[in-house]
């Protein structure tokens, strides 16, 4: 009798396990259908869609209103003429103020060790990240300021992006923002006249924006299958040599892996 009861119990356990497995696969199947529907919907709009890679298109095919396209062409023209787009740069303003704001944030949140908080930490390795971050080589910075998370926090894994701040003596305060492409399912559509291949033959965009009243931000963005990275450096003045320096910094960072 005990043997028969044991056998019936085993059958129940197996039956329940099969039911649970079926439910699990049903959830995954439903989730896949949802993801496919939404992706198709976005693609139909001509928008960058999840896992869509990096596409380069002409301004005629760029999905933007005519006024925006006209503005794009003006920005390009200004960059060709001046080397930068003459307008206020909030990024430059914030990077130039980093010496004050970073110290304040590090001090205020020194004891907040929750992996989910978004304030500044002293080191990139203090963050709980869902990927292996790029370490900024010591040859690039004379002062490492701090790091903070970006994008979203995946349960049980960690953050899917990060930002690191440092000072480079050839230009000034800089930030490197890194977004993990596979985790974020990122993609991009770029207008071809903005695109170069300056950073190790990867699709690159270099843009300088600024005025004397805000300072100048030197931005280098580069894209590969693993990361979308943005280097931004700030200086109170404009100089072509700063643009060149920013590109060299980006190349060195990219060579880290």
């Amino acid at each position: 009798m005990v043997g028969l009861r044991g056998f019936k119990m085993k059958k129940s356990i197996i039956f329940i396990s099969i039911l649970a497995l079926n439910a699990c696969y049903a959830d995954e199947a439903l989730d896949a259908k949802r993801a496919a529907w939404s992706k198709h919907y976005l693609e139909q709009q001509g928008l960058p869609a999840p896992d869509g890679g990096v596409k380069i298109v002409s301004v005629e095919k760029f999905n933007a209103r005519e006024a925006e396209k006209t503005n794009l062409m003006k920005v390009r023209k200004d960059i060709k003429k001046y080397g930068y787009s003459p307008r206020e740069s909030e990024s430059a303003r914030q990077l130039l103020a980093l010496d004050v704001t970073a110290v304040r944030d590090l001090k205020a949140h020194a004891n907040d060790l929750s992996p989910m908080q978004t304030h500044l930490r002293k080191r990139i390795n203090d963050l709980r990240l869902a990927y292996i971050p790029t370490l900024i080589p010591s040859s690039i910075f004379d002062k490492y300021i701090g790091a903070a998370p970006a994008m979203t926090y995946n349960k049980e894994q960690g953050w899917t992006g990060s930002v690191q701040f440092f000072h480079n003596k050839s230009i000034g305060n800089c930030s490197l923002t890194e977004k993990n492409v596979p985790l974020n399912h990122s993609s991009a559509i770029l207008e071809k006249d903005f695109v170069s291949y300056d950073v190790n033959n990867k699709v690159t965009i270099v843009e300088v924006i600024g005025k004397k009243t805000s300072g100048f931000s030197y931005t280098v963005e580069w894209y590969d299958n693993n990361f979308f990275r943005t280097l931004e450096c700030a200086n109170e003045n404009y100089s072509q040599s700063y643009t060149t320096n920013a590109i060299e910094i980006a190349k060195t960072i990219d060579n880290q892996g």
Partner: protein
Amino acid sequence: MKKGFLFLSILFLSVNAHAGAWAVTVHSRANCAGFNESITWHAGHSYYWRVESHHFPYGWSHPAHIVNTGKQYTWRAAAYHLNEAYANRGDKWFVRGYHFYYVDGRQIFDQVTEANDCNIYDGWWD
């Protein structure tokens, strides 16, 4: 069942501002005492963003509707639908958020986020 897709552009400022402190953070949440939402934000830093929040009722493979912020220059782009999802009455919506970023010559799809609950685990409260 008649399929209908309602496109809403809703901006809603919550009383408490929670956002990425030093960089952009993106989130979705579902069945939160009445609302479903997806949000992109960075405290005090404005960018051109657009957020689409796709809201799926329980068991559906397509959304019942999509909340779209439209492209806007802001520090907080929230695609928010109020009075839709109450956990205490057993609502089980699923939310997928699509977060877009626009800057000169670039249209970037930053991230997809998803949620089936309102649990705060992704820096939301910071």
